[in-house]
């Protein structure tokens, strides 16, 4: 619905953004694909020629691949489970009338604004440190032996830290969705004799359905690439090496660029599978 003049103006004005993102996507992607087909060791001889799909095979058959996939899945799944369940609970709670609602909301949301390196460092040292950490003091107070969190329960610890960071996100989105629920619907259900549990199961939860899906998809995409939390806490040791961290180590630490790039391609494919579902929902919303 416009004139040819405004349509050509529109194309022109979209061009810079589209061009920048196109370059940003295509150039590195092509390079990653290129390196993934080569044996490329910058510190040990550089470009050693084409190896076909060798890197792809070696990446998945290396002994660290499957453990890293497993670690990734446990971390992502654990964080999702914790944040969604607690997020729904918190959204329900914060939607209730109370004194100081605004302040409570701020308290709950705060962790999201803490930069990942800070939260990792604070948890690692001030809370989880087996000698001076607050948890150690607490454990000793109850007469228990302090836990060496990051070596004895490394994955649990990381799940805990990351969940703390992402719980506000889930809560905030679910709370927003909750507030768009027509309260008359709940009142009608109450008049119809539905118990609080029935109201939650038949009205609230279905209403939150789409928001929960979105929380899961967006968090999955971000969680698949968590980095700073592991970089600061365990550096990938004690079985906390996720796929992202493994690729990082291959590329920058052991400088095996070919192998790392093949891993990168796997990561890209994995993220795109999740993204596809997300985009379908977002796209549907766009039509409405």
């Amino acid at each position, binding site marked *: 619905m*416009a004139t040819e003049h*405004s*349509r050509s*103006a*529109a194309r022109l*004005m*979209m061009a810079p*953004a*589209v061009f*920048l*993102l196109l370059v940003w*996507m295509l*150039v590195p*992607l092509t*390079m*990653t694909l290129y390196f993934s087909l080569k044996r490329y060791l910058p510190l040990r001889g550089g470009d050693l020629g084409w190896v076909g799909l060798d890197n792809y095979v070696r990446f998945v058959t290396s002994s660290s691949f499957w453990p890293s996939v497993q670690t990734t899945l446990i971390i992502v799944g654990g964080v999702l489970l914790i944040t969604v369940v607690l997020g729904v609970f918190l959204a329900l*709670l914060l939607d*209730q009338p*109370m004194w100081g609602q605004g302040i*409570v*909301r701020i*308290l*709950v949301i*705060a*962790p999201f*604004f803490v*930069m990942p*390196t*800070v939260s990792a*460092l*604070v948890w690692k*040292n*001030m*809370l989880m440190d087996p000698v*001076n950490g607050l948890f150690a*003091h607490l454990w000793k107070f109850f007469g228990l032996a302090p836990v060496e969190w990051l070596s004895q329960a490394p994955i649990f610890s990381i799940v805990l830290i990351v969940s*703390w960071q992402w719980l*506000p*996100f889930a809560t*905030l*989105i679910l709370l927003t*969705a909750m507030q*768009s629920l027509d309260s008359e619907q709940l009142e009608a259900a109450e008049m119809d004799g539905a118990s609080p549990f029935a109201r939650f199961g038949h009205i609230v939860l279905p209403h939150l359905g789409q*928001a929960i899906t979105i929380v899961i998809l*967006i968090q999955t995409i971000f969680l*698949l*690439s968590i*980095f*700073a939390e592991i970089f600061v806490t365990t550096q990938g040791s004690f079985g906390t090496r996720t796929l*992202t961290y493994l690729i*990082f180590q291959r*590329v*920058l630490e052991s400088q095996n660029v070919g192998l790392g790039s093949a891993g*990168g391609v796997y*990561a890209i494919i994995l*993220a795109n599978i999740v*993204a596809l579902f*997300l985009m379908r929902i*977002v796209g549907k919303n*766009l039509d409405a």
Partner: protein
Amino acid sequence: MARAVTNQRKTVNTVVAWAIGLLIFFPVLWTVLTSFKTEAEAIADPPLFFFFNWTLENYSVVQERSDYMRYLWNSVVIAGCSTLVGIVVAIPAAWSMAFVPSRRTKDVLLWMLSTKMLPAVGVLYPIYLIFIELGLLDTRVGLVIVMMLINLPIIVWMLYTYFREIPGEILEAARMDGAPLRNEIVYVLTPMAVPGIASTVLLNFILAWNEAFWTLNLTAAKAGPLTAFIASYSSPEGLFYAKLSAASTMAIAPILILGWFSQKQLVRGLTFGAVK
């Protein structure tokens, strides 16, 4: 109609919610408190909550020893410039998509979103290599470019959803009134969209401020922002709790304050308009 609620129930809600809220907020609170202690008090057993000798010493030590201001300035420049450049690039694009939609608009929007989904680690080495070739490694310019690009899809999306709420008739009226495209955007659209643009700036500033993959991998001492500054404390020689806390507090304080203003925008920005 608000439902009538007994005071008793409201009290229970309040107590439970405050307890949970404080529990979630506790790590932040503890960090801030510790930053005012001496190192000995910081690791005291049993822990000291409020009754200790409040001191600002840690803050001055952190500033002296690690040049906090330089990292802070890097953070401000990187987050600020990347957001501003992003806005300037995104406003015309969002205008096009919101007011002159074509059959491809939806595809372009979704494609932009998909670039945001690209896992950073997948393109780490190419970017690293390009940065070395162009001399951008450990420079603020380099990080501004990368931050701008990774946040551009979110900026375009947010502006797009805000612009769509502005009736197209007003822009047509401006066109009828003789405003050329530039004036239409500068005098009519932009002032009307100020709240939306401000929210977009705020959220993207926060995202850029907290970004901790590229900032850690592409900077060293020179252009490192606060994320890198804090990461440097993870090495054992930096383990002084009170100083670590002071540094952390300084790194997160500005953004915590900004963040509280942007709760609503956060939802819109991070769900790409799918939850309002």
